[in-house]
């Protein structure tokens, strides 16, 4: 998981263009960064640490050149050090390579190269420049890079500059790579925000494609040289949508953006008065298998419950498990949930499902992502860019979108469709109401020093409990676990003490609420502080030390609202602890390695 940037045609602005691009890619990894500029010779600068470390380093010594590549890294092979940072060079220093992905046969290649080449890093990437160096003995620059691609196994997006050639050579295999096209300049990057400030015209490369960027523009071919002419698309979002807009953190901004994100998700898709949900996809559904990881897996659990409620067999699977232990796939629709649409584990799962003949559907935020293009269909959650590594608005939008998917394809079971559409349309205002008056900050201050946190919920609130715990773990580095409310007494109750606050999500006053209140009493009896996330319909407040209120709504949408309170709790706990909220340690936004 790393971020790549490259540009041709920016003249003296080349270095600044690369650094600014890396700024916007830092969410893809931030343990080291580097750039290489070609101008007759190749000059490289790289540094462990966040991008600021590289900027400081460059303050003393600035490479110049009109063709350049850059990289921000998240370690997979070797610790974050200057030596392991990209770009990597060959023995002569005339070839520089940046790479995202994993070269699976790198050990074999390295053993083969080790006799004639000196390796200075622990990375898999370093084999690439040395392979190119060898190939340059028999080939021109472009052919040398192509010849090298034939030797690589695994996933990669690479970009290469070679001394004496005013061009960038790049290739894509199972890792994202997109071109930005402007009148006098051409860009390449792992993700559009890296060059969005310069152009809104983009070309999404496909797996197995090779591109040459030079002063004349760009040329796309297959690895074997067959010409390709992918279409140029226009992206519509505002480049500055990725600024913090006066908020202390992107995550807090993104939490506050949820009303707008959900309006976008719902726009044009629901008609409350007619009781209709219309999506531009219409998959045939007998059974559903969801595959996802992390936060998206929680959305998948919730989604599977919606389909089961409509009488359709549905299950959620962790994508990495699904890929190696695939359940029987018959007429199933396999729904991949991934914010980025690039999650390698989830891609592996849908490829396996596809191999077995299943129809696949991508539920993602990124138009043009690998998942959106590889699946039979795609349903976009339309959240706009999310920069904070911990997902917030995109989880809410995933829950909303999966409701739309269920309503449009299999209906709502025993529930009244118009009520449910009404509840979905109420979400933006309901979330705004929570944001206007949340007590999460006070709760966070009260319990910030606890050794452990537990989250419980039943039914639709079970995924919310899991997500509440994950969010807290991710950004506060505090131990937390989420449970189905009834499961606590089957083991984990042994850990519950007066030092372990329990967040209980209880809405409505039906059977699920009554039973969860029974579980609340169990933890209360062990002296644990209880924080109820509730709409006030039940009497759970009697057993709670603190209450986080949400507006009354449908049982399904209540899960979305309860999650917003728990996002705020996680944010404020992490903030009280002074954590790096937008870039938590060891984590990257979208994980494009398996």
């Amino acid at each position, binding site marked *: 998981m790393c971020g790549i940037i490259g540009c041709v045609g920016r003249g003296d602005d080349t270095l600044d263009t690369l650094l600014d691009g890396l700024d916007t890619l830092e969410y893809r990894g931030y343990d080291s960064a580097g750039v290489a500029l070609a101008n007759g010779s190749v000059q490289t600068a790289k540094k462990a640490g966040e991008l600021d470390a590289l900027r400081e380093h460059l303050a003393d010594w600035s490479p110049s050149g009109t063709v350049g590549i850059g990289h921000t890294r998240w370690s997979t092979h070797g610790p974050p050090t200057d030596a392991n940072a990209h770009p990597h060079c060959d023995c002569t220093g005339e070839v520089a390579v940046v790479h995202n992905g994993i070269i699976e046969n790198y050990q074999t290649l390295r053993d083969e190269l080790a006799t004639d080449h000196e390796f200075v890093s622990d990375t898999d990437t370093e084999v690439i420049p040395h392979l190119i160096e060898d190939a340059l003995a028999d080939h021109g620059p472009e052919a040398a890079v192509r010849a090298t691609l034939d030797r690589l196994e695994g996933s990669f997006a690479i970009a290469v500059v070679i001394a004496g050639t005013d061009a960038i050579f790049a290739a894509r295999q199972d890792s994202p790579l997109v071109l930005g096209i402007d009148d006098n300049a051409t860009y390449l990057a792992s993700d559009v925000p890296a060059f969005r400030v310069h152009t809104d015209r983009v070309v999404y490369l496909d797996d197995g494609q090779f591109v040459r960027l030079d002063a004349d523009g760009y040329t796309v071919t297959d690895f074997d040289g067959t010409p390709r002419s992918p279409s140029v698309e226009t992206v519509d979002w505002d480049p500055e949508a*990725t600024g913090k807009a006066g*908020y202390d953190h992107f995550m807090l901004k993104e939490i506050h953006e949820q009303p707008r994100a959900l309006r976008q998700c719902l726009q*044009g898709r629901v008609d409350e*008065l007619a009781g209709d949900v219309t999506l531009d996809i219409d998959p045939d559904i007998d059974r559903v298998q969801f595959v996802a990881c992390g936060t998206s897996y929680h959305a998948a659990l919730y989604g599977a419950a919606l389909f089961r409620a409509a009488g359709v067999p549905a299950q959620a699977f962790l994508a990495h498990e699904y890929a190696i232990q695939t359940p029987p796939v018959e007429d199933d629709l396999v729904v991949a949930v991934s914010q980025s649409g690039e999650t390698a584990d989830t891609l592996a799962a849908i490829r396996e499902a596809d191999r077995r003949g299943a129809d696949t559907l991508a539920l993602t935020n990124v138009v043009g992502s690998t998942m959106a293009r590889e699946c039979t269909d795609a349903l976009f959650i339309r959240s706009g860019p999310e920069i904070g590594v911990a997902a917030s608005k995109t989880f809410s939008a995933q829950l909303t979108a999966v409701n739309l998917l269920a309503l449009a394809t299999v209906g709502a079971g025993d529930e009244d469709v118009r009520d449910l559409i009404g509840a979905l349309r*109420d979400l933006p*205002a309901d979330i*705004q109401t929570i944001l206007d008056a949340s007590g999460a900050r006070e709760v966070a201050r009260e319990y910030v020093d606890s050794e452990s946190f537990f989250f419980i919920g039943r039914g639709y609130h079970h995924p919310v409990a899991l997500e509440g715990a994950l969010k807290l773990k991710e950004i506060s580095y505090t131990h937390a676990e989420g449970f189905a409310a009834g499961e606590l007494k089957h083991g984990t109750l042994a850990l519950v003490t007066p030092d372990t606050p329990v967040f209980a999500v209880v809405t409505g006053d039906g059977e699920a609420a009554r039973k969860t209140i029974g579980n609340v009493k169990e933890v209360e009896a062990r002296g644990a502080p209880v924080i109820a996330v509730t709409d006030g319909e039940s009497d759970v407040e009697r057993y709670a030390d603190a209450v986080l209120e949400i507006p009354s709504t449908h049982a399904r949408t209540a899960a979305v609202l309860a999650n917003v309170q728990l996002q705020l709790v996680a944010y404020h706990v992490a903030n009280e602890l002074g954590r790096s909220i937008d870039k938590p340690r060891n984590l990257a936004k979208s994980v494009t390695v398996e």
Partner: protein
Amino acid sequence: MTVSTGVVLAAGEGTRLRPLTSTRPKPMLPVANRPILEYVLDALVDAGISDLVLVVGYKRDRVQNHVGSTYRGVPVTYVHQAKQLGSGHALLQAREAVDGPFLTVNGDRVIDPQTVGDALDAFDGTPTMAVRDHPNANEYPNGAVRLDGDRVTELVEQPDGPYRLINAGVYAFPAGWFDRLAATKRRGGDLYLPDAIVELAAERGVVGVRTEGLWVDITYPWDLLEATRQLLGAGLVDEQAHESGVYVHETARVHEDATLQGPVVVGPDAEIAAGVVVGPDTAVGRNITVEANATIERSLVGADTRVGSGATLCDCVTGMAGEIGPGVVVPGGETDVRIGTDIHERERLGAVVGDRVTLAGGSTLGPGTLLGVGATVGVGAIARDHVAAGAEVVR
């Protein structure tokens, strides 16, 4: 003199507009479906301002979330006024964010590019303020002005005697002016921008420039209705025009048997059922639902509100996410309205309703009712006068 920076004062609550401002700052109140602040920002951007500084305070999330990090491509910097200690104090917070001469405007008055342009054209480095003719300058609460030639001779809050000009709330200041502002005499701990102007006018003169562009001040709830009428009349609306004075967002769903009487604007994602009559002089906000045969006239209906079948709303301003039941009646008309301790006689006002109220089926709001945030009026009950936030009115 070239001025590229515009400082917008958007930190204030607007207490005379409660309960609408209980949940949002005054600049975020919608007029013809757009927050007042958007008209202000448009005026600045259209007048060539390329760097925006927003002073935010009260309920600042609402401003930051709405405007974001750029407005129409112009970068926006936020500075935070933690305590609302007057307009001068608010401006002082922008000191570190501003470099060079700058424009300052109030974020809670609708202005147009011409007003901004006139102030910029007149600015030669001497502090400059825009003024305009006003029929009731004597009663204008935000400052009456007298000029001698192009120099400001008087700026008074409670004018005594005949005045014709008022302070339009648009100023241009030279670089380094913050030091002078900081030295202004405070009143009860608060620092007011007009006080600084008065001191400066006496010391070395302030230029007053007469302007005639569109300009709407909003002090009381009924001003929102009047402002909407004017802006709809001027066509300053985001939504697409369908016929003369009828603006409907492309994502709204309006039943073919509903009637839209212009001037009227229907926001994004709105759903309007058969038999509904909306307008004239009406703005219905984003994502609202109006069920069959309801009537809404001379009203602003806030975003995410549901209006039940057969309801009648006249001369109303409602906040966000109201639940207005079937057959609710707000007959509207002229009445005496109490705002704070003042009684305003014969104002045309049906009701002012805060966010998230519930008006149960068949309930009625008497003319001039002010209903607090989250209040409930029970089935068939009648509410009058002031109803506190969260209160419940039963029959």
